[in-house]
């Protein structure tokens, strides 16, 4: 025990340094960006690499099943409430830290090439480092409050990066929208913290979990807290109905879409629920809500994804859809499966986005897949790696997406047949639109302008190396979590087992599906994906179809292409009424009613003064007359009473 303690104390310094490096990087570049110029890209990358190395060090040295929980300083303290600033390094945070710093480093490296010609080069890297800092706080904090710092901090970084090209007002709108939508969710998070602070007396995970265990499963309090937390997760992880900011967030530079709006930040909601697994396990109703919101989002976004023609928008909707899948897994109580999909998704979605960036780079900024085609001849590395990513997300054996998705589907089959059907449909749609995207971009003949064609070129090594590395992981990551039929040892689930042990006990553990069923499920999933790919092949390669121009889209497709007009609906339901209310309050209530009352009281005083003044004539006769009248009045009163 003592040895263990000493060993853990040694890890405090490296653990503290992990988020400190990106913070230092941010400050240095923010202050000396101009002088550093293009060095800032390398400096920022080096900082993340350092964090990554330290995270690996922690990963290797964290003894056994123990965790490292330490306090840095007391942040707020009043009465009997103490809120400290501290970190918790356990298997769950380590998984997230590895993803954040690992993929984060690759994307930093990629950005050096991608952003080379941008005048805001240094600024870009300072924001990226700031993002990593907050994201690390989010996953490393030992309390909900520290998570909330990171939670809002990544929102800020996301705001700054979506609106990175601030000259464009549409981008600024997208940035503002993301921040405000997230804030709606944050209010839920904040209220959840108030509940916990009030009823549990603290916000650190230990206190909360311990106090929660004193309550019955399914009590209103725990249900309220988890529902409010989930509202926060809906905002950050772009679930129905708060998802509309994420597709718009594609306004940011493509590496940002890869890092923040696909691989890391948007999975914060999944992390939060996984972190609160004990609370959620105690709230079966909330879990149902989580599951159904996840399923609905997964299908809804997948349908929209089928009709998008902007390469980044397709990927954005696929992110929303995949996040829905993860929430569905969490809702079924399969926390480790949800986390497993977070990890595999991080690899292949980052890969796809960076690949898309490489395509856009080659196409001189073009993003419409209707104007691409035949790129496999020109950008071979991008093509090959993009194919791997597409196969992974479509769930083709033996790519990583197959295993993580299969696990979620197996969980669904085991007790939620309807969910299983719906998620299988969503997976089929995913395979279809991803190959539609792939075929239209890379196959057939080039459909762009001659000028674009002459510029076509493969990206520099700083961009292709991350693609290759990510594609390696997009293949092998699945082997960390082989299904029971293939291996006795699910490495990923075993690694996270201590985190989810208590919640497994609270929930009735589902019996595992037997081996033959598992084979069957895997077969069905693969077959379904292959059929989808076949249909996509038939449409876009064999029949040489092309998505119609925007003006020609009609009927249902028009609804889908326009994302079911949800943005317009929100505008009519919330934005417009708010603006009208604002004007109404100002013009009618504030200026007219309230101020009129104030001015009226002033006027009454003035009026009284003016009226009484009339009596002050200076005429002695009048004064005497009034005096006599007054005396008579008083005498009359005396007589009566």
């Amino acid at each position: 025990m003592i040895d263990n303690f000493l060993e853990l104390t040694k890890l405090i310094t490296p653990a503290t340094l992990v988020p400190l490096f990106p913070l230092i990087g941010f400050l240095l570049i923010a202050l000396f960006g101009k002088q550093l110029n293009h060095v800032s890209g390398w400096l920022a990358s080096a900082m993340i690499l350092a964090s990554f190395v330290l995270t690996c060090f922690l990963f290797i040295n964290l003894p056994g099943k123990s965790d490292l929980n330490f306090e840095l300083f007391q942040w707020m303290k009043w009465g009997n409430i103490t809120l400290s600033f501290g970190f918790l390094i356990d298997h769950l945070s380590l998984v997230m830290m590895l993803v954040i710093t690992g993929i984060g480093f690759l994307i930093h490296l990629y950005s050096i090439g991608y952003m080379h010609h941008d005048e805001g080069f240094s600024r870009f890297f300072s924001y990226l480092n700031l993002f990593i800092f907050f994201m690390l706080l989010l996953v490393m904090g030992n309390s909900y409050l520290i998570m909330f710092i990171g939670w809002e901090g990544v929102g800020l970084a996301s705001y700054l990066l979506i609106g990175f090209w601030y000259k464009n007002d549409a981008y600024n709108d997208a940035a503002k929208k993301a921040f405000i939508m997230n804030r709606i969710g944050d209010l839920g998070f904040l209220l959840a913290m108030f509940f916990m602070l009030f009823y549990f007396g603290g916000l650190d995970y230990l206190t909360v979990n311990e106090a929660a265990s004193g309550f019955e499963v399914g009590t209103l309090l725990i249900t309220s807290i988890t529902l409010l937390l989930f509202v926060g997760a809906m905002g950050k992880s772009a679930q129905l109905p708060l998802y509309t900011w994420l597709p718009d967030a594609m306004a940011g530079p493509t590496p940002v879409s890869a890092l923040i709006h696909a691989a890391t930040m948007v999975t914060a909601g999944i992390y939060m629920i996984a972190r609160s697994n004990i609370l959620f396990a105690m709230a079966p109703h909330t879990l149902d809500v989580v599951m159904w919101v996840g399923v609905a989002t997964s299908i809804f976004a997948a349908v929209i994804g089928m009709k998008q023609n902007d390469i980044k928008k397709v990927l954005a909707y696929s992110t929303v859809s995949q996040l829905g899948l993860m929430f569905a897994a969490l809702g079924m109580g399969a926390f480790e499966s949800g986390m497993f999909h977070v990890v595999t998704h991080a690899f292949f979605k980052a890969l796809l986005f960076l690949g898309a960036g490489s395509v856009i780079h080659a196409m001189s900024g073009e993003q419409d897949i209707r104007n691409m085609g035949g790129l496999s001849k020109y950008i071979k590395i991008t093509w090959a790696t993009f194919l791997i990513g597409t196969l992974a997300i479509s769930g083709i054996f033996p790519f990583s997406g197959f295993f993580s998705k299969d696990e979620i589907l197996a969980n669904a089959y085991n007790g939620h047949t309807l969910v299983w059907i719906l998620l299988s449909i969503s997976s089929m749609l995913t395979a279809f639109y991803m190959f539609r995207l792939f075929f239209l971009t890379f196959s057939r003949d080039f459909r762009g302008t001659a000028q674009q064609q002459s510029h076509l070129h493969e990206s520099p090594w700083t961009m292709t190396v991350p693609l290759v590395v990510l594609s390696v992981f997009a293949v092998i990551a699945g082997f960390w979590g082989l299904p029971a039929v293939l291996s006795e040892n699910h490495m990923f689930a075993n690694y996270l087992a201590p985190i989810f042990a208590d919640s497994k006990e609270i929930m009735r553990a589902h019996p595992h599906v037997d081996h033959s069923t598992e084979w069957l499920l895997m077969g069905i999933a693969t077959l379904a994906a292959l059929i989808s790919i076949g249909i996509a092949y038939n449409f876009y390669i064999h029949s040489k179809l092309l998505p119609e121009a925007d003006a020609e889209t009609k009927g249902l497709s028009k609804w889908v292409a326009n994302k079911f007009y949800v943005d317009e609906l929100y505008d009519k339901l919330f934005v417009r009424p708010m603006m009208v209310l604002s004007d109404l309050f100002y013009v009618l209530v504030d200026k007219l009613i309230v101020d009129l009352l104030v001015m009226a009281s002033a006027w009454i005083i003035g009026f009284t003064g003016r009226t009484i003044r009339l009596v002050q004539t200076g005429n002695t006769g009048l004064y005497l007359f009034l005096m006599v009248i007054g005396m008579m009045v008083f005498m009359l009163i005396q007589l009566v009473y």
Partner: protein
Amino acid sequence: MLSLTLLSIPLIAAILLLFSRGNLSRNLALVFTLVQLVFTVYAYTVFKNEGSAAFEFLANWSVKPVLNIHFAMDGMSLVMLMLTNLLLPLIVLSGYNREMERPHVFYSLMLFMQFALNGVFISFDGFIYYIFWELALIPIYFIAFNWGGENRAKVTLKFFIYTLAGSLLMLFAFLFLYNGSPAHSLDWSSLTNNPACSCNQTWLFWLFFIAFAIKIPIIPFHTWQPDTYATAPTQGTMLLSGIMLKMGTYSLLRWLIPVVPAGVAEWQYVAITLSVIGIVYASVIAIMQKDLKRLLAYSSIAHVGLISAGIFTLNLSGFQGSMVQMFAHGLNVVGLFYCADIILNRTKHHEIEGLGGIRLIAPKFATWFMIVILGSVALPLTNGFVGEFMLLFSVYQYNTWLAVFAGLTIILGAVYMLRMYQKMVLGTAIKENMVFPDLYWNEKIVLVTIGILIFVMGIFPRPIMELTEPVLKNLIK
């Protein structure tokens, strides 16, 4: 005796300044406010080490009726003094590259204002407190009247009469207390030890409440405020919004709650409801505001609404949070109005629409403006978050649904602030040939100081909380 020194530095400076001219007045004002700041820091160390004894001052003004001058110090007073005396040099410095007429009178009034504000915060006798409270009104009236913008005669008159009417109510309250108390004394400790008569405290509550509500302002007593903020010269607005309105919130804690406890307990729900309605109401109005300074004025109403709501929850989270937030709001609102002033001064454009593109030519200004906004929208690790978190929690402790409603401020605040920032600072310039030099040296000092303090306070709010905790804990009983 330290109390008298605290008062005499700005008073002597105010008199001296009348005999100076031009740039000298400005420099003298800066020197004196800095001296006062240093002295406040010294007072802080004395208070930390030796307690409040060194600040006690008691003198008799008249024997019959018994009127006393009583100065003292506790954690709450000290926090307010630190805020006042920290902001004043910044406010003086902010005017360095602005031309103005008769600067010696202007800065003399400003230091006189500092004198009165210091007096309000260390007075522990109702009589002398009331005098300082009224004294503070005089310089700001002349500042707004003589150096203000459009419509200043009308607007300042309204402001003056409105607040004076409020003070009159407070005077009645004090007279009532004087007659009602067995000791015939307005001393704070005697008033708080035997809270005003066992009789119905409703009248007392409303007299005090309306007086303070006008100053803060709590809706519906706020209509003087947007006009005055928009019309007064920016340095005057900084004084008003940064410090003077805190006289109101401070007085709630210092006088209303301990002196009229039964009245407060009875009418608590009205006060909280008004405050919380004010938060949402003012935030909603701010969304569509066309004028920059007016937008900031309404956002200020929303922020102080949360402070007063927290105070009236009567729990420690609310009390402590309100002190933190008073300090934070003081800093942030001065920063915001300064940024507004920089834009107005350079572009002569006071509307939110029709500008844009500032970030392209003045990136430093844009960055620091953003940082102040982050403090104002209460991003975690900024000073705004600590206060807002505690205050919203205190409202939650009082009533869950009220907290949900008050919590809308974190959404609405982001809506109006980011909209304003986007329209004015981001995008491309709508005005042709806009000249917008980046921050001058004095602007840089002011904004960087505020910006750094926003984070320092956001990460280490403990010193303020430790100072006020003993006083506020006493108040809970």
